[in-house]
């Protein structure tokens, strides 16, 4: 592997956003194919990061910063991929957000980070997202996974609303719906006709992979 890719790998593992971005630019200038950089530097780096988290060496902030560094490098590579009419291999496309009326961000963002670190394309719609927005975004991106977060017992009904909206839009069969948040649980997932429930961000990756048969 080239020296630049080695450094890019190191920068992502260390969670250094600015160096990761600069090294990605350097890689393109050195005519390294973006897919090569992704396959040889970014993906292996995230695997190492995941391993370090599993063994207890890394904590959530280390993970989040590594994902940020990866994102910064991807932002450099994506236009180059488009220009070459190439596509990054992703495990799946996820549309995620906190449902309408609920403004709690942190849990949802952690799940988004973990999924993107695991190799998914993630579209994070933020918080207080109406059901119609989820439907639009699924249609636009061709997503096969929808993640719905709700922290309050009063807003968890919003998760049901999204499942119903997907049904009405004829998109329900295209996606696996996974829910999460303090008041939610496996029973609630069953009640509202979601496909899965995850207790935390780590579990979310496993649940999504399992639902997609990965």
């Amino acid at each position, binding site marked *: 592997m080239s020296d630049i890719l080695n450094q890019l790998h190191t920068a992502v593992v260390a969670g250094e956003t600015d160096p990761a971005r600069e090294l990605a630019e350097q890689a393109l200038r050195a005519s390294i194919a973006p897919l090569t950089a992704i396959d040889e530097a970014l993906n292996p780096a995230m695997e190492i990061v995941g391993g370090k988290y599993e063994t*207890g060496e890394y*904590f*959530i*902030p280390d993970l989040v910063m590594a994902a940020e560094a990866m994102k910064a490098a991807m932002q450099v590579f994506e236009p180059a991929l488009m220009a070459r009419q190439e596509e990054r291999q992703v495990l799946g496309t996820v549309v995620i957000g906190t449902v309408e009326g609920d*403004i*709690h*961000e*942190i*849990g949802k963002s*952690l799940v988004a980070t973990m999924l993107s670190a695991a190799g998914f394309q993630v579209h994070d719609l933020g918080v207080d997202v109406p059901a119609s927005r989820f439907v639009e975004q699924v249609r636009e991106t061709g997503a096969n996974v929808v993640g719905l977060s709700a922290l*309050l*017992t*009063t807003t*968890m*009904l919003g998760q049901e609303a999204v499942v119903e909206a997907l049904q009405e839009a004829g998109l329900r069969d295209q996606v696996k719906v996974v829910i999460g948040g*303090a*008041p939610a649980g496996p029973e609630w997932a069953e009640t509202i006709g979601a496909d899965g429930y995850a207790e*935390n*961000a780590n579990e979310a990756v496993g649940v999504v992979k399992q639902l997609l048969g990965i």
Partner: protein
Amino acid sequence: MRPKVEFLSRETIERILSEAYDLLDDPGVRVHSERALRLLADHGADVDLAAQVAHIPADLAQRAVETAPSSFHLYDGAGQPVVHYGGDDIQFDPGSAAIEILDHGATQSREPVTADCVRFLQLADGLDALDAVATSIVCADVPQEMADWYRLYLVLLYTGKPVVTGAFAVETWSVMKDLLVAVTGSEEALAAQPRAVFDVCPSPPLLWSEITCENLMDCAQYRVPAELVSMPLTGATGPATLLGAVVQHAAECLSGVTIHQLVNPGAPIVWGGSPAAFDMRAGTTPMGAIETMMIDCSYAEVGKHLGLPTHAYLGMSDAKIVDAQCGFESGIGAILAALAGINMISGPGMLDFESCFSLEKLVIDAEIVGMAKRIATGMVERETPLGLEIIRQVGHAGNFLATSHTRHWFREELFIPSPVVDRDFRRGWEAKGSLTTTERAHRRVAEIVAAYEPLNLPDEVVSELEAIAQRVAQSAGLDHLPER
């Protein structure tokens, strides 16, 4: 001398407040209520209505702090002022809004229903260590839309103790107010002798959602005490540094006091919170972390410096069952809170990050509360000389048990625990069945619940409560209230 724990120097408190006032102006506070934004604008805040951001000048917030009362009482069903918010007085109430309950002996929790809430209230009513109750159990056998006021409805039917509560929606606040009016007689009586305090929770960082902001203003308007529950999560929704989190807490609370006092100057409001030292491994919000407790005690010092009543969620645990972690986290928290002189300490009974209630834990925590209150009383100079006279009198014979001095003073000096705390000889403990703390607690739960005496509420008050509950339940799609 009253023992005290202090984490902050006066200089540090002033720096915290100075930074908090600066934050109110830049970046300002997000307020998702047009009513509040217009009110702030009318009083000199620089408001961006489209962005829903208010830049609050320091002097506006400082004036609000001045008009807020430094103390007030909560009243029980008999009209007695049994809870005093102010000074260093300490009081305890159970933790609030559990969406799960843990049965004795179970490792899995379950959703609580009406019968669980009633049993909890009968128990809390009988535990003298608890100065107030809380709407601690969210019943799963009623629709979500009515879960908040339904808890208060049950509380008012089963206990006369003051209540720490809160609304889950904008509309339900007035239902809860109506229920309180049913037991106090009128809106004026409720304002004059408030029975309940309402938690209102800003969202970190620096956001008043529509629900909490409207609840806050409704409390002010009717002079029903409001309790600010600011909850920065270190390194997640607030700074990772503990003092940084205290600064954010102060800014959120100051903005709350400002909005509240603009609606109705002089209305009672409490400087409270539920911050947590975010767990960087699990991504959870531990209430039993020592740093959580340090932030709580520190923000309480800031509140006291401002001359405001204080509150904290302490004395709870993140354990999943009633085990050793459950005991030590609850114990440390309750003792620290007592030594910090926090007026209302909410937590007894609560497990699993403030989400799961255990009746056995509640009676164990009542023992902790007894000890916490005792330590807060401190070493008292009971007589002069302190010991010279009695020691001389008993002399070298040394049997103090046979003196009236002992008989007179031991009840004053000692907190006498219930049988939940084992102080027997080993043989005695074995003879009683070698029970664990939790098993002893389980027995005590049954005893206290069995000894519960129903409230003698006037029939017309009960009818009024039921009429309100039935009317609002029907609009939530529930034709019949669950059996009690």
